[in-house]
């Protein structure tokens, strides 16, 4: 078609030139003739006439140019006229079939809306670029522990300096850790802030400078250096009223006056969205220690070096360190791009979700396609007349396109509105990991996506009836009448039935997937967490060093700290409604920290690696509901004067003591201080519900108080824990009014959160598959009803020839089931392939779980049968005489 237009333009161009030439020649020749009759010679006359023209060439050129402009303008006018006409015609057609148009528009709006909602999450969380300069050059440099099989561990400060010194793959490296501090103000409650202690060049490495003020200088990042702090943008806005004069002011952090030197960029949520302030880590190679492992290392790769190459180098460096230092035994290295770490967890979940919603959209489109094909068949006559009256194929196509794009346009506007609501709904259900990353909103990119989807759908649906029309036998249409005229489109409708089978196949894939994911959720929910989650309240606080000195020179003798804890437990247990209370470094289902340790019954120089460590008050096991397997628990009277004790869990006993008796052996950590293993308790899940409980040791808080940091109070209540949270907080404040209390929650909530991701994707995929199934059933029903209506003639004859009602019923049902079975088989095969892709999301169930597939097949077969029942009943009710008489 474009070729014809181009040829047309060239043609008209030549025609214009010849017209202008002819017109001017006429004028010249007439005038010359006139002058000749007056007596001039031809040559003279010609010369005179040409003179009066002036620059003939210029005149001719001007005339041609204006003519060309004229033709162009006419062309535009014609085009807008026809478009205007088509638009008006489309309006009329849509209005004349309100029911049909509404069904199509609503179906598409739902499909487009759902897809847009999911895409807005995918876009906000996965596709938006990270707010760091050249983010793909940034990597984490984790350590890992071969003994416990972990993948990501913190390093020690010595490790950091060694990494930095020995590595050639990185342009720069920084380290950081997170802790919490109390911000005390003259007004209001003490506020707990999440603080990141960082090396001064972290901001430079990330490539993000402060928005006001300055970043930490190297002189401030030295041991015993000045107290300075950078505020996060969020904290600056919420607690300091975005006052630009805040730079230079002093605030009290954990009782220490600290100068504010600047405010970080908005959106710089490093290391996490919760980070409120940055402070200098104030370490140096001289003060660095090989233990403990408490810092995270981040580096920017040298240009041209890949993360994989850096990884290889770091693994080698880790091996070298392992050989040189006993503290580094079993410590490997793992270089991971920052974006992988931040997003890797949720990537699979979100893409699976996106795949599911696209499938639903596809099914909705198939339904609409079927509706259009049906209508196209019904309008066959109308189209034939149009064509016979001379409407070119192009015009027909344009008409269908305009109609289709109009409906799709309306549908997508509705869809966007739905998407805004839908996104909120999805986010409400989404697990914290999704929410913690990126801003999710319906923005320009998302709207662009919606536009793209709508245009693709609109154009495809416009082409569909056009394709149908092109295969019409015009003569047959115009000659024959209604019913038999359908022969042109075929009552067999192979295309439509194929489409329905495809719909069914897609629904099967969705149903199987949803089934597997829900099974995963159920499996996870039935995992025994190892502790009693009911009626357990928890909250965190942090004792500032200024008021609770922790001098490592006299450790474990920290009287202020120990006294506070003793008194707190006593007072809390005195609250009516409280059964027991305990204080621990980490609550159940929290990964916490590990320590290197050694078992003294075994050769002294063998460092065993690292074990998860919990520092708890003696009441922990009761409060949390850990069962005692053998030996005894800690005494409430244990302190620094009584023998040092430690309790281990079953996993530790099995791993490190084999079949032998662990009781009576001694364990040392944080130095060569042997502690007797007095008891073995049951395993509590530490790293979430998926992973088996690791070997764990529990030390007595009064014998081995932990380094400064936040700590958890756990309270066992007689009934609903939330009712007592206010009293417990009051109690803490009765001991120290300046203490910030945070992370108040119940263990039931924590347990629920542990399955949040599985619940999210399980529920959403089930909803989607339900919708898909419903649409597919509608599809079956639609096609069969249509077939029944068209084949009344045939049915009438059959019945007249002796077919019973049952035979007719059987005929229709077998048609419907044929479609269903084909769809089912294809779907099951496809499901095997598709479910393999998200195997990492499953727990306790294989991608090819026979029960799930069988259940889906059964479900689909049954409902499909019901869906065919209605049209089949209608068919069997046909009075044979009516169709025979009618035609």
């Amino acid at each position, binding site marked *: 078609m474009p070729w014809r237009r181009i040829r047309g333009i060239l043609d008209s161009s030549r025609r214009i030139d010849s*017209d*202008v030439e*002819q*017109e*001017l020649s*006429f*004028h010249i*020749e*007439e*005038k010359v*003739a006139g002058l000749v009759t007056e007596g001039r010679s031809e040559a003279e006359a010609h010369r005179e*006439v040409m003179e*009066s*023209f*002036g*620059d*003939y060439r*210029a*005149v001719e050129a*001007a*005339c041609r140019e*204006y*003519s060309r*402009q*004229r033709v162009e*303008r006419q062309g535009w006018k014609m085009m807008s006229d026809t478009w205007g006409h088509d638009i008006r015609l489309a309006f009329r057609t849509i209005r004349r079939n309100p029911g049909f148009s509404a069904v199509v528009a609503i179906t598409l709006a739902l499909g487009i809306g759902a897809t847009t909602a999911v895409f807005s999450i995918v876009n906000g969380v996965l596709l938006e670029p990270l707010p760091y300069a050249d983010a793909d050059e940034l990597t984490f440099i984790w350590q890992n522990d071969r003994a416990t099989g972990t993948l990501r561990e913190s390093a020690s400060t010595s490790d950091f300096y060694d990494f930095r010194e020995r590595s050639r793959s990185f342009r720069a490296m920084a380290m950081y850790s997170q802790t919490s501090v109390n911000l005390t103000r003259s007004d209001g409650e003490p506020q707990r802030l999440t603080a990141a202690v960082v090396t001064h060049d972290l901001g430079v490495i990330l490539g993000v400078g402060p928005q006001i003020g300055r970043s930490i200088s190297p002189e401030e990042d030295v041991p015993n250096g000045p107290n300075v702090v950078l505020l996060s943008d969020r904290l600056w806005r919420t607690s300091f009223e975005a006052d630009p004069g805040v730079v230079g002011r002093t605030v009290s952090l954990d009782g220490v006056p600290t100068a504010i030197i600047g405010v970080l960029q908005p959106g710089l949520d490093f290391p996490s969205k919760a980070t409120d302030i940055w402070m200098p880590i104030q370490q140096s190679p001289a003060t660095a220690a090989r233990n403990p492992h408490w810092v995270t290392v981040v580096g920017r790769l040298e240009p041209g070096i890949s993360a994989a190459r850096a990884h290889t180098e770091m693994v080698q460096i880790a091996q070298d360190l392992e050989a040189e230092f006993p503290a580094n035994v079993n410590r490997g290295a793992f270089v991971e791009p920052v974006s992988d770490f931040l997003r890797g967890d949720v990537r699979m979940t979100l893409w699976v979700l996106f795949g599911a919603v696209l499938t639903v959209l596809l099914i909705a489109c198939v339904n609409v396609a079927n509706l259009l094909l049906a209508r196209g068949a019904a309008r066959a006559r109308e189209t034939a007349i149009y064509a016979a009256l001379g409407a070119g194929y192009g015009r027909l196509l344009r008409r269908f396109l305009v109609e289709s794009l109009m409906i799709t346009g309306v549908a997508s506007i509705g869809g966007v509105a739905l998407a805004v609501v839908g996104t909120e709904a999805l986010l409400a259900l989404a697990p914290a990991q999704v929410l913690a990353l990126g801003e999710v909103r319906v923005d320009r990119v998302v709207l662009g996506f919606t536009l793209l989807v709508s245009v693709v759908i609109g154009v495809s649906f416009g082409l569909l009836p056009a394709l149908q029309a092109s295969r019409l036998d015009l003569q047959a249409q115009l000659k024959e009448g209604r019913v038999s005229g359908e022969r042109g489109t075929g009552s067999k409708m192979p295309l439509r039935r194929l489409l329905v089978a495809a719909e069914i196949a897609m629904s099967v894939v969705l149903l199987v997937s949803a089934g597997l994911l829900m099974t995963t959720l159920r499996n996870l929910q039935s995992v025994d967490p190892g502790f009693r989650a009911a009626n357990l309240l928890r909250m965190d606080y942090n004792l500032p060093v200024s008021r609770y000195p922790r001098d490592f020179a006299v450790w474990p003798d920290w009287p202020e700290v120990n006294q506070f804890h003793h008194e707190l437990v006593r007072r809390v247990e005195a609250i009516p409604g409280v059964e027991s209370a305990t204080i621990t470094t980490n609550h159940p289902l929290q990964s916490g920290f590990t320590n290197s340790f050694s078992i003294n019954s075994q050769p002294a120089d063998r460092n065993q690696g690292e074990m998860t460590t919990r520092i708890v008050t003696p009441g922990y096991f009761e409060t949390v509901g850990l069962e005692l397997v053998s030996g005894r628990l800690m005494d409430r009277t244990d302190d620094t004067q009584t023998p040092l004790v430690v309790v281990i869990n079953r996993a530790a006993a099995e791993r490190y003591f084999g079949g032998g008796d662990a009781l009576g052996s001694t364990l040392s950590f944080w130095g060569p201080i042997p502690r007797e293993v007095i008891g073995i308790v049951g395993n509590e899940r530490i790293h979430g519900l998926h992973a088996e409980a690791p070997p764990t040791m529990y030390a007595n808080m009064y014998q081995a108080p932990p380094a400064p940091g936040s700590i958890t109070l756990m309270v066992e209540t007689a009934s609903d824990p939330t009712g007592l949270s206010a009293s417990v907080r009051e109690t803490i404040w009765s001991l120290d009014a300046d203490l910030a209390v945070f992370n108040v929650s119940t263990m039931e909530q924590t347990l629920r959160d542990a399955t949040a991701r599985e619940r999210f994707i399980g529920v959403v995929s089930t909803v989607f598959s339900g919708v898909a199934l419903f649409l597919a059933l509608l599809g079956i029903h639609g096609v069969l009803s249509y077939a029944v209506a068209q084949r009344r003639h045939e049915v009438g004859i059959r019945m007249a020839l002796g077919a019973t009602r049952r035979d007719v019923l059987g005929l229709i049902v077998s048609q419907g089931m044929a479609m269903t079975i084909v769809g089912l088989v294809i779907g099951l095969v496809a499901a095997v392939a598709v479910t393999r892709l998200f195997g990492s999301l499953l727990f306790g169930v294989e991608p090819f779980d026979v029960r799930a597939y069988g259940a889906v097949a059964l479900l689909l077969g049954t409902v499909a049968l019901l869906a065919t029942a209605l049209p089949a009943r209608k068919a069997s009710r046909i009075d044979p005489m009516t169709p025979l008489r009618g035609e």
Partner: protein
Amino acid sequence: MGKVESDTLYGTLNLLILKTLAEGPLHGLAISRQIHASTSDKLKIEEGALYPALHRLERDELVGGRWGISETRRRAKFYKLTKKGRSHLQREMKRWLGHASAVAAVLDVVPAWSD
């Protein structure tokens, strides 16, 4: 006899052409002769100005072009005033007359058409 330069009286040229066509369709040569005749030979339009002006008027849909047979039995392009052209003519005539009267007043001259 004054020669009308195309650049000085551009708008006026359009006016003359449109007015000439108000009686009926003519081809380019006839338009030129008619203007010459109705101004008692005082105004002669350059062909170099006339034809571009005609094509411009046709582009702007003030006149319509159509091929026909001339009085000398030859193929020629005839121009006809369109409705749009007719109303444009009325408007421009009024404006031109108003403008000219003002100039005449300044020159302290009484124009022939004033009453």
